[in-house]
């Protein structure tokens, strides 16, 4: 029994790291700017689509003009996609932040409505450019296919994606805690007026944070695309678990989000293995159970802003 359980635990942890990756950008924006960015899923989808355009000839870019580029091997194109995708989405995110400015200091509902509207606009924009068909984001041969572990075959790409997610989590933590920019971001969230009084441009800071959060959403989109596929509504698949992870972990808490991601991954993974029809529901039952006893989530008190 235990022997049968081990692959599912490992799989659940790998899945958990991906859930945490999904939630990083969402966490940053909600934690620092107190805006629930419902466009997170659409930015996630846009990142995947831009990566698609960079990776394949019929992915949205003019082929004739780009022909020499598409002759490049898949590894450099994939690396370029991982850079260009987040940059493009960061610009879109910055634009969205400019639209959001009029809602600062107002009822939070305005921000919520604006980002919801932006999500719809982005999704329709994607449909307009790429259509509603399914796409598949190719990945370099070295990280595709399965590998044999004992009696089982497991996806090489999932291992790569989990390691990538862990690395992103580590890098983001280092950025927030070991760089002066990170310190300003945290301080800006804690006391914006003080940051302004110290001579920092608060507007620029917010612009940067939102663009950075959007770029993180795009990175998650590119990493998840080979697993989930690419279609205009794929953002909905992302925003719901991201929201669950954030609330479960404690709004604004970095390690809360990471540990909640891992917990959700484990619970969903194990439930899918042994009671599959409960797998989707298990995530919400977990949220319900935690929020019932800890209304601020697992680490609601120790947010990155307060540390």
């Amino acid at each position, binding site marked *: 029994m235990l022997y*049968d359980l081990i*692959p*599912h635990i490992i*799989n*659940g942890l*790998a*899945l958990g790291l991906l859930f945490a990756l999904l939630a990083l950008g969402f966490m940053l924006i909600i934690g620092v700017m107190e805006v629930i960015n419902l466009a997170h899923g659409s930015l996630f989808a846009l990142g995947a689509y831009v990566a698609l355009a960079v990776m394949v000839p019929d992915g949205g870019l003019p082929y004739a003009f780009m022909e020499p580029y598409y002759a490049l091997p898949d590894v450099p194109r994939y690396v370029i996609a991982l850079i260009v995708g987040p940059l493009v989405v960061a610009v879109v995110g910055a634009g969205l932040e400019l639209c959001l400015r009029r809602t600062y200091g107002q009822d939070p509902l305005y921000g919520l409505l604006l980002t919801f509207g932006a999500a719809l606009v982005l999704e329709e924009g994607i449909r307009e450019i790429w*259509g*509603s*068909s*399914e*796409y*598949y984001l190719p990945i370099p041969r070295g990280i*595709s*296919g*399965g590998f044999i572990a004992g*009696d*089982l*075959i*497991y*996806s090489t*790409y*999932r291992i790569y994606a989990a390691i990538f997610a862990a690395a992103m989590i580590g890098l983001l933590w280092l950025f927030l805690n070991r760089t002066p920019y990170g310190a300003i971001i945290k301080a800006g969230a804690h006391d914006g007026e003080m940051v302004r009084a110290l001579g920092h441009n608060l507007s620029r800071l917010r612009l940067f944070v939102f663009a950075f959060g959007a770029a993180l959403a795009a990175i998650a989109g590119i990493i998840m695309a*080979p*697993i*989930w*596929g690419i*279609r205009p*509504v794929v953002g909905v*698949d992302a925003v719901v678990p991201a929201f669950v992870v954030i609330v479960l972990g404690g709004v604004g808490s970095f390690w809360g989000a990471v540990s909640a991601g891992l917990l959700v991954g484990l619970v*969903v*993974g*194990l*439930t*899918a*293995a042994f009671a*599959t*029809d409960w*797998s*989707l*529901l298990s995530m919400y039952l977990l949220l319900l159970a935690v929020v019932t006893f800890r209304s601020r989530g697992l680490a609601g008190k120790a947010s990155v802003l307060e540390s």
Partner: protein
Amino acid sequence: MSMKAVNRRSFLKTSLLGGAAGGAALFGPWTHNRVYAAASDKPIRIGLTHDASGQFANSGQAEKRGSEMAVAEFNAKGGVLGRKIETVWMDTETNPQTGTRVAERMITRENVHFLAGAVQSGTANAISQVAQKYGCVYFNTNSSSPTESGANCHRVKFVWDGNGENFSKAAARNAINSFGNNWLLIYNDYVWGQNTNAATKKVATEYGATVMDEIAIPVGTRDWSSVLLKIQQMKPDVVAAAVGGDDFKVMRQQVHDMGLDRNPAWINNQQDWPDIFGLGADAAFGVFGTTWYHYLDLPGVPEFVKQYQEMYPTTRISVPGNVTYNGYVAMRELLRVVEEVGSTDNMKVIKALEGRVMTAKDRMQHFDAVIDANSHQVQQTIYLAEGNAKPRDDTDYFNILSWSDPEAIRSSAGDECKLESYADTPSYDQG
């Protein structure tokens, strides 16, 4: 101006009569009759209930293209009964509640003569309940739960796709002989998946398979890794999957990614063309069923493909597949029947459709098809296919393995169908 005196007795009498008439209008009769002044040269309006969002958005738009092709074909010939054909389309969002709302609106506000379109069985069932309430003839073009022509059949509903049992019958015996008799069944946990799975189980056990387990997959599942690990641990010979729409796309991707697409053997009930187009032959894994393929070596097929490409030169799905085909042949048959009976009256149309034989040549299939008079399902040729290892071009994903005579794979779901009587079906004609 004369004034008539109203005494107490006449007032009471008038009130009682008025009340009785009002009550009758409110409480009965239950049968709705929407019959408008007879024919005119006004256009024949057809309500298209094709999805544009949700799980089957892509397939919904594919069948819409098929319906529109048939309408354009008739309009180019001057319409039907000398009247132009108009379509009214509303997105049913792959959602039964929306389906109900759209059908209600199409009939009561848009005054459509007929309804056509559906991919998801839950939505098709919802639309057909409204259609039956009013008596409006409804064509379920692409949803293939056995219940659509079984327990949920209706006098006004005609089901144009092969159903899960047709596909299972076509595949089961071959799969047991070729791959083994230990079967694992996985299915989407909603009406189509549940009923298709039940049909597969019935057929597989009849042919001697042992069902190891049945796994219900919630609709909207995006991570299949745990299920795929479980499948590996159980070591079945065959996995029979009744998974559709976006869930199927995600499953296929993850099966392929884990390298499980060859072992165990996969039987995927039906592979809809919009779910696979653009992904290459590798994505067509396992053995699966379809009702039509654009490289069938049959008269009329190249012409139909050409007609599609001329009408939709920029559509990403550059060749029609089974979903568009079903949309097309269904609409074409509806318009032919209206022409033949010389009316849009629902009873005349229903009676002309029941038991109607359509030749193989006309339908671009290998065998004649017939609309079963007792279940209203089109009994037609089912093709078994696999991914094409030697494609002739970048649209040639399927290798057709065999085709089955409709009689050999006839679904028993119709045994559960109890069609409403003609008398219990409201008369309906929008004139």
